[in-house]
C-alpha cells in the first residue's frame, strides 16, 4: 500500500497542474471549440482532486460529486456545441474575435487584427493511386434516373 499522504499530495498537484493548463488554454486560445476543450481539462483537474480526497477520507461523497460533474459536463458540451454550431452559421468561422460586437457600449474593441486565412500546404495532397479495374457500363437512361442509388 502506498503512503496515503504522499499519494494525496501527488494527486492534488496533478489536479492543480491540469487546472492551470486548462486555464491557460481558455484564456489564450481563440478557437471556440479549443476553448471548450480547455474548460473540460479544468473540470478534469477538479475531478482528480475530489477523487483523491474521497480516497483519503474513505468516503464516497467526492466520487458522487465527480459523477455529477460528468453529468453537468455532458449537458455543457451539448449546449455549448449547439451554440458553437449556431454561431458558426452566423459568421462562418469559429473565431471568438468574430463576436467582438458583443462587448459593452463604451468599451474599445480588442486590438487584435483579423489575419487572413492561410491556404493549406502543398504537401497535404491526396495519395496517387494506380488506376485499377474497369469502368462499369452505364445505361444512358441511368444518367437521368438511377433506380439503384
Amino acid at each position: 500500500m502506498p503512503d496515503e499522504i504522499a499519494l494525496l499530495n501527488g494527486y492534488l498537484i496533478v489536479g492543480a497542474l491540469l487546472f492551470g493548463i486548462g486555464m491557460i488554454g481558455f484564456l489564450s486560445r481563440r478557437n471556440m471549440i479549443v476553448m471548450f476543450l480547455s474548460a473540460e481539462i479544468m473540470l478534469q483537474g477538479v475531478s482528480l482532486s475530489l477523487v483523491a480526497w474521497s480516497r483519503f477520507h474513505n468516503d464516497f461523497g467526492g466520487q458522487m460529486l465527480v459523477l455529477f460533474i460528468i453529468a453537468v459536463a455532458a449537458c455543457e458540451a451539448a449546449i455549448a456545441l449547439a451554440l458553437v454550431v449556431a454561431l458558426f452559421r452566423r459568421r462562418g468561422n469559429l473565431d471568438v474575435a468574430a463576436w467582438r460586437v458583443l462587448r459593452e457600449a463604451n468599451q474599445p474593441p480588442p486590438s487584435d487584427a483579423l489575419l487572413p486565412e492561410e491556404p493549406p500546404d502543398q504537401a497535404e495532397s491526396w495519395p496517387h493511386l494506380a488506376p485499377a479495374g474497369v469502368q462499369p457500363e452505364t445505361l444512358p437512361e441511368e444518367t437521368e434516373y438511377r433506380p439503384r442509388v
Partner: protein
Amino acid sequence: MPHYIPILTLLLAAVGMWLMLPRGGARGRGLGMVLTATAIGLGTSRLPWLGPWTAEAVFLVLAAVTIVSALGAVTFHNPVYCAIWFGQSLLGTAGLFLVAGAQFLAVATVVIYAGAILVTFLFVLMLAQPKGRAAYDRVSWEAPIAAAAGVVMVGILSITIGGAFSHPIVPPTEAALAAGVLAPQHVAGFGGQLFGRHLIAIEVAGMLLLVALVGAAVIVQHKEPNG
C-alpha cells in the same frame, strides 16, 4: 532545499508555456517544450516518495501521460489534434481514477468523456472546419499574460496544498480503506450511496440532462431567414 527553486520552476513553466502557445509561427516551440519539461521535472523532484516503487512508477507514468497530453491539447494548432490529445489526457485521468480506487468513475470517464463528448467535439469540428489553416488557430490572445496567469494559479494552489500538509493529518488505515472505498464490492457501495443518500440529486441530474437535450435541439435548429 534552496528557496529559489520553486520560483525558478514557475518562471521556467511560464516562459515555456508562452513559447509553446501558438504565436503565428513555429519559432521557439522546441525550446518551450524543453523549458516546460524541465519545470515539470523540477516540480516532480519535490514530490514526496510514495513508498513501493511500483506504486510510484504507475503514478508517475499516468501523471506524465495526463499532463503532457493536456499540454498538447492546449498548444497544438490544429483543433483536431487538440481533441485527440484531450482524449489521451482523458485516458490518463481514467487511469489515475482507477489507481485512487474510483473504478466506476474511471469507466464512466472513458465511456462518457472519451466516447460521447469527445466524439461530439470532433463531429462539430468536421461540420465547422475552414478550408485551410485558419488564422485564429495560429495566434493567441495575449499568450504571455495567459501563461503567467495560469502559472501563478498553479503556484498559489501548490502553496495552499503544501499548507494543508503542514498540519498533522491522519491518513486512513488500510483496514478502513479495504472496507470502504477500496472494497471489492466498490460499485455496490457506490450505487447504494448514489440511490440512497443522493437520490434527489440524481433525479435532478437526469432532469438537467433532459432539459439540456431539448435546449440543444432548440438552439441548433435551422431557421430560414425569411421563414
